[in-house]
């Protein structure tokens, strides 16, 4: 009888070529789950304080989810963990595809690598065991070519492959790790860590079975979830979505969002369904966060209408165990024949953020960045930063290698990103993100670098939803949109299953969103705790947004493991993981206050027009209140010494 997890991890030292297994005690899974939690446990234990993120002491982990492969749905995501060279602290990135079950089929919940190899290598694991092999044949190839190399002539169970492209090999601090031909674990710059270790790829061909404690119960809970996923009204149009966004902007009140509507949009179009709607409601930052929907109205954003993506979508793409299928494979013209359907984040960071209307250039850049293994959110911000530097006279045409870097100049944008991938000229300066670029350039350019602790925030405007500002600023891995916001809290509907959490009123006045109070702090802490459970389970955020009664993650966890924990007890597990990750940062010299997102993203100065006109975020109060919820020092954001001692005693 199984319990959903495999009970051990693999540790590979690339320097000494020593490969060992480490048994993970059951109590650790109970304390931290797998995925993010197991990653935090391993990294806290194995990375010495002050380790260089690009040095041999850093450890990079590929961790599956506890629920992956147990008959649950939406649980095909894996977490990449390591000390981030972008922020200097805890780093994680998350990705779907088919790699997560492949880790467990090798008999491990996580694969951790440390040390630095003298020559490029890849890690191959099959039923006979792990092995480091020479990667000189694939070093220099892009991510799609690399996968093709390994899949060529392969017969047997489908391989799980995670690899870096030229960006990771060139240790670009905004590079990520790719699976399934361009699905990226993009954030935190962990591709650079893999590149610094000269580890080109992890290729998995194991056959171990994943056995949950109660498969029938898993199936029963999955059926409830699937029923909601398949509910899909036929009458929605893309223009209707844009209109809804405009209506949401105009109304003084807000209807609490139900994740079912978002699910319908995702199922029909994928994340691009938000393209115009988000701009209209003020959720998308425009023109390097200094513009507004006035600069990027319906006419200008029309080229990114969701139907434009449906027209070239050849087939929908489902990650492992996903009944929804928000992804797609699209045909393109030009150098590449097809590409993964660009995601909302990519379309807006290469579109509205740069005032770039040329959708063909976005398709091209999407594939270029996926193949290079570079984070499209950070790349878009780096270009926006460069354009503003050019506009303000910090850059001259000589500095830009002759590029006319103006807003919306798609040819210059494409050339600049090609230079970033190749680390040529100005591209070399920008390939490590906006914070590093502004430090190198100086001349007041830091005012144009929008980031949180070094990481560029995602395409969700924190002036529209202050919850994003909070999580951009307080998370151990800052600047990420995949942890929490006011909107997510509404959709998670955690108060339906967890006692003591504040309910959201079905209708409330928009102004109340900007008032920092205890309920918002509780909601923010609950988001972080819950997402640690989600990331520990390998669950997809989009699944979680269905609402806690429709997707019963706590029940799945009990059925998979045989535990009998209550939702409150699971939320305490989520809090444990958050404290461990924050303690990791403190140990590595991070001042949590320094992760506060840039002023522009907080409405400082206040915008005078557009959807977010007159809005500002009380971030200092929000951060303080949030830290109090975890019992940390509200002035510094650090867990108290006794808390850390207690935590270390339990490792």
């Amino acid at each position, binding site marked *: 009888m199984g319990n959903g997890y495999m009970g051990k991890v693999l540790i590979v030292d690339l320097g000494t070529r020593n490969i060992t297994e480490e048994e993970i005690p059951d109590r650790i899974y109970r304390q931290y789950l797998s995925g993010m939690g197991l990653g935090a446990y391993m990294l806290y234990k194995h990375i010495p304080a002050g380790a260089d993120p690009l040095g041999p002491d850093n450890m990079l982990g590929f961790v599956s989810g506890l629920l992956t*492969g147990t*008959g*649950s*749905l939406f649980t095909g995501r894996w977490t990449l963990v390591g000390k981030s060279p972008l922020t200097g602290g805890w780093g994680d990135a998350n990705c779907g595809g*088919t790699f997560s*079950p*492949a880790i467990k*089929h090798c008999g491990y919940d996580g694969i951790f690598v440390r040390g630095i190899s003298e020559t490029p290598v890849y890690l191959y694991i099959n*039923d*006979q065991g792990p092995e480091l092999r020479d990667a000189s044949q694939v070093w220099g190839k892009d991510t799609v070519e690399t996968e093709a190399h390994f899949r060529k002539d392969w*017969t*047997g*169970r*489908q391989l799980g492959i995670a690899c870096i492209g030229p960006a990771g090999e060139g240790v670009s601090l905004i590079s990520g790790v790719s699976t399934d031909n361009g699905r990226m674990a993009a954030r935190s710059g962990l591709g650079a860590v893999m590149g610094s270790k000269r580890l080109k790829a992890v290729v998995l061909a194991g*056959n*171990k*079975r994943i056995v949950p404690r109660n498969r029938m119960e*898993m*199936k029963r809970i*999955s*059926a409830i979830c*699937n029923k909601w*996923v*398949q509910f899909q009204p036929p009458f929605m149009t893309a223009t209707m979505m844009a209109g809804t966004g405009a209506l949401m902007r105009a109304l003084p009140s807000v209807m609490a969002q139900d994740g079912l509507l978002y699910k319908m949009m995702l199922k029909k179009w994928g994340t691009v369904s938000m393209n115009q709607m988000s701009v209209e409601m003020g959720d998308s930052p425009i023109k390097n966060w200094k513009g507004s929907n006035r600069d990027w109205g319906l006419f200008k954003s029309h080229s990114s209408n969701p139907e434009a993506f*449906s027209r070239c*979508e*050849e*087939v*929908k793409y*489902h*990650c*492992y*165990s*996903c*009944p929804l*299928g928000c992804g*797609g494979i699209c045909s393109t013209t030009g150098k590449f024949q097809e590409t993964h359907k660009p995601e909302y984040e990519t379309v807006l960071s290469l579109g509205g953020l740069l005032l770039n209307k040329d959708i063909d250039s976005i398709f091209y850049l999407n594939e270029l960045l996926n193949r290079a293994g570079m984070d499209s959110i950070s790349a878009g911000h780096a270009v926006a930063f460069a354009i503003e530097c050019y506009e303000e006279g910090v850059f001259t045409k000589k500095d830009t290698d002759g590029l006319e870097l103006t807003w919306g100049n798609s040819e210059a944008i494409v050339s600049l990103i090609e230079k970033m991938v190749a680390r040529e000229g100005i591209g070399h300066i920008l390939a490590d993100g906006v914070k590093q670029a502004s430090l190198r350039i100086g001349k007041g350019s830091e005012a144009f670098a929008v980031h949180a602790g070094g990481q560029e925030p995602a395409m969700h405007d924190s002036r529209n939803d202050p919850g994003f500002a909070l999580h951009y600023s307080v998370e151990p891995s800052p600047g990420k949109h995949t942890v929490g916001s006011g909107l997510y809290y509404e959709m998670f509907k955690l108060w339906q299953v967890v006692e003591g959490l504040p309910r959201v009123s079905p209708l409330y006045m928009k102004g109340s969103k900007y008032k920092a109070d205890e309920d918002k702090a509780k909601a923010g802490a609950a988001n972080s705790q819950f997402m640690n459970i989600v990331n520990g389970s390998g669950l997809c955020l989009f699944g979680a947004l269905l609402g806690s009664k429709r997707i019963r993650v706590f029940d799945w966890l009990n059925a998979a493991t045989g535990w009998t924990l209550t939702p409150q007890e699971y939320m305490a597990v989520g809090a444990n993981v958050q404290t461990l990750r924050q303690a990791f940062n403190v140990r590595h010299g991070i001042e949590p206050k320094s992760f506060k997102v840039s002023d522009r993203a907080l409405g400082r100065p206040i915008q005078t027009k557009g959807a977010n006109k007159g809005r500002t975020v009380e971030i200092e109060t929000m951060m303080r209140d949030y830290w109090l919820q975890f019992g940390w020092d509200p002035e510094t954001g650090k867990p108290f010494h006794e808390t850390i001692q207690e935590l270390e005693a339990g490792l």
Partner: protein
Amino acid sequence: MAYIITNACTGCGSCSRICPTQAITGEKKKIHTIVPDLCIECGSCGRICPAGAVEDAFGIASVRMKKSAWLAPVFDLKACMACVICLDACPVGCLAVGPPEGKDPNGYPRMADLSSCLGCGLCVAGCPADAITLAPRMAP
């Protein structure tokens, strides 16, 4: 819980050749053994053994069948949610996602290589929607 090979084994090697996880070892004309850690209980060794020398974890002897009589998965596409768990469950990679048909933009699983299908039913066991059944395979 793994299959075992009994003393009736003649050492012909059929089982070790078909085992998708290389879990069976042994010299020619000598009794073969299954490494329990590697066995995924697909049962293909039992279905191919000419000596009836394979027993499952409950001690039930497997019965040899001609490969043309082995079962193969059939998909109920109305119940299928295209979650691709079956593709991952298949130890030989004989399933693939087909192109979308009609107005439905999703691609659904289909048999891509019947000759390599072991009829093991691991796709059936993994399917959370009960959308797969095993049925006599069609002649290729």
